[in-house]
């Protein structure tokens, strides 16, 4: 039975990853999960300098999901290089570093600093809805996305994954722009912009007013977008959005994703990632699937 998948020449022991921002740099959840079991750990977004993030409250619960407006708080690239990457290097798993920035220059500086590290791939966050500058500003217009993708690709020593926002009219247009600019892969979806109001206090629940919706509530939207994008581009897709178990992960694979990432559900069940890994193997045994790659885009099309 083969569970290995390959993205831009990087081989993963299985297609199960962590979604950036939900897993820290792996340290916190290493108490619950054997990181060696995962296809990859995708780190919390890191910038060229430390970011304070947004005021609290930063999280709110919604029906079948949650809103967050952390605002990309991060300790900066120096700390990632000194503390987080050496920690992750102890494990037999791939490391994907998520990179954020306010300007193209910020992104390039961080990407350059990562060039000589053992990070296997870089995921470029052009889709966080919770910061005023940068991030999503690059991810909602095809020409801006093209420019930043091309600039990062030129500088990056590792293959790059562009993380797409669902908060656009046509995600396939964005996907094609990233592909045309040289992106090696896409990850999707980032969170959907949402809002919650406390009717008793008549106030916004989040200090930032809006936040990104994630969790099982967004899964059907994510599966649909992965499917549409898989039809539109040739580069591999890492699918995410509310994955809680192997069945959810399989939907993404069948829709066309080469790999999947577990996000908000880590907060609900810290063992979710490993349970997905095990569940995929059980599914393969049950249906006699020899190679997990045969499932990618395997949803039956009506002829």
């Amino acid at each position, binding site marked *: 039975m083969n569970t290995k998948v390959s993205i831009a020449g990087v081989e993963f022991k299985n297609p199960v990853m962590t979604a950036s921002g939900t897993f820290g740099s792996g340290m916190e959840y290493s108490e619950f999960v054997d990181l060696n079991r995962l296809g990859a750990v995708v780190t919390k977004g890191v910038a060229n300098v430390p970011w304070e993030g947004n005021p609290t409250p930063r999280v709110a619960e919604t029906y079948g999901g949650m809103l967050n407006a952390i605002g990309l*708080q991060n300790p900066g690239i120096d700390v990632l290089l000194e503390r987080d990457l050496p920690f992750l290097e102890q494990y037999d798993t791939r490391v994907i570093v998520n990179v954020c920035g306010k300007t193209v220059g910020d992104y390039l500086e961080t990407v350059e600093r990562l060039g000589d590290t053992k990070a296997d791939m870089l995921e470029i966050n052009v889709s966080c809805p919770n910061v005023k500058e940068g991030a999503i500003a690059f991810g909602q217009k095809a020409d801006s996305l093209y420019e930043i993708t091309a600039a990062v690709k030129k500088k990056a020593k590792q293959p790059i994954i562009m993380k797409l926002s669902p908060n656009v009219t046509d995600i396939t247009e964005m996907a094609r722009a990233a592909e045309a600019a040289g992106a090696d892969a896409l990850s999707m979806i980032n969170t959907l912009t949402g809002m919650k109001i406390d009717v008793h206090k008549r106030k916004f629940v989040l200090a930032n007013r809006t936040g990104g919706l994630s969790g099982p509530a967004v899964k059907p939207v994510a599966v649909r977008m992965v499917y549409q994008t898989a039809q539109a581009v040739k580069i591999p897709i890492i699918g995410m959005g509310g994955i809680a178990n192997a069945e959810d992960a399989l939907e993404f694979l069948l829709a066309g994703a080469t790999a999947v990432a577990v996000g908000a559900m880590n907060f*609900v069940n810290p063992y979710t990632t490993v349970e997905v890994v095990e569940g995929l193997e059980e599914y393969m045994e049950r249906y006699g699937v020899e190679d997990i790659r045969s499932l990618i885009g395997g949803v039956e099309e009506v002829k």
Partner: protein
Amino acid sequence: MPDGKEWKMMGQKKKTKAKVVCQAEIADGIFDMWMETELAQTARAGQFLCIYPQNGKTLLPRPISICEADKEQGRLRIVYRVAGQGTAEFSRYHVNRTVDLLGNLGNGFPLEAAAGKKVFLIGGGIGIPPMLQLAKELAQEGEAANVSVIAGYRDCRLFLKEDLERYAKVYVATEDGSAGTKGTVLDAIAENGLEADAVMACGPMPMLRAVKRYAKEKGIEAYISLEERMACGVGACLGCVCKTVGKDAHSHVHNARICTDGPVFLAEDVDI
């Protein structure tokens, strides 16, 4: 907070299933529940549990402080206020019901900071419960010279007062004056002419701010337990941060994670 503090608790956190031993409403909307769980063996005063509602509509756990740990019987006690649908669900749990929880989380109150000192344990409202386990630990293994509890209530429903009296002298303040001193916990301290060398406190933010000011005026240490809306409970999501005076050793910005770096902080270290 030194780097690598998170390693101290290594291997002690887990998601597990507990069983309800008993539950009762002990004041308006305030419930007292004992649960059977192996987490009782390692629980420390000031730590908390993340309890998961099972209704399927809500996903995130509710952080609730540990009120008491009974190591011999392997039981943990929580005393909590019904504040929304999650805690409303917990309040309907009957005996033998399974509870999904993650624990033990956070760093507790530092018993060593009380050694040789006269200590105030100040609890306000639903901040009173963690003071019980703290009073118990200080009485059983602490080296404090003297421990006084000052508990602030809304009214004369003085929940946990008798439990607290097993371990320390208890002074009461009530908002409506129906028991003890009318006013705040600080009014009760003044009215009774009390003095201390250190303070440990949990309660609403205005109370904690007043406690911080009081400790600063008196030149004594205050350890305060904070709360914030949380998601993961284990330090990964950065949802529950509080502003810190200095740059935090983990975040490298002026934010500490309440769930992991706290919930107990030295008052002068946090900007509240």
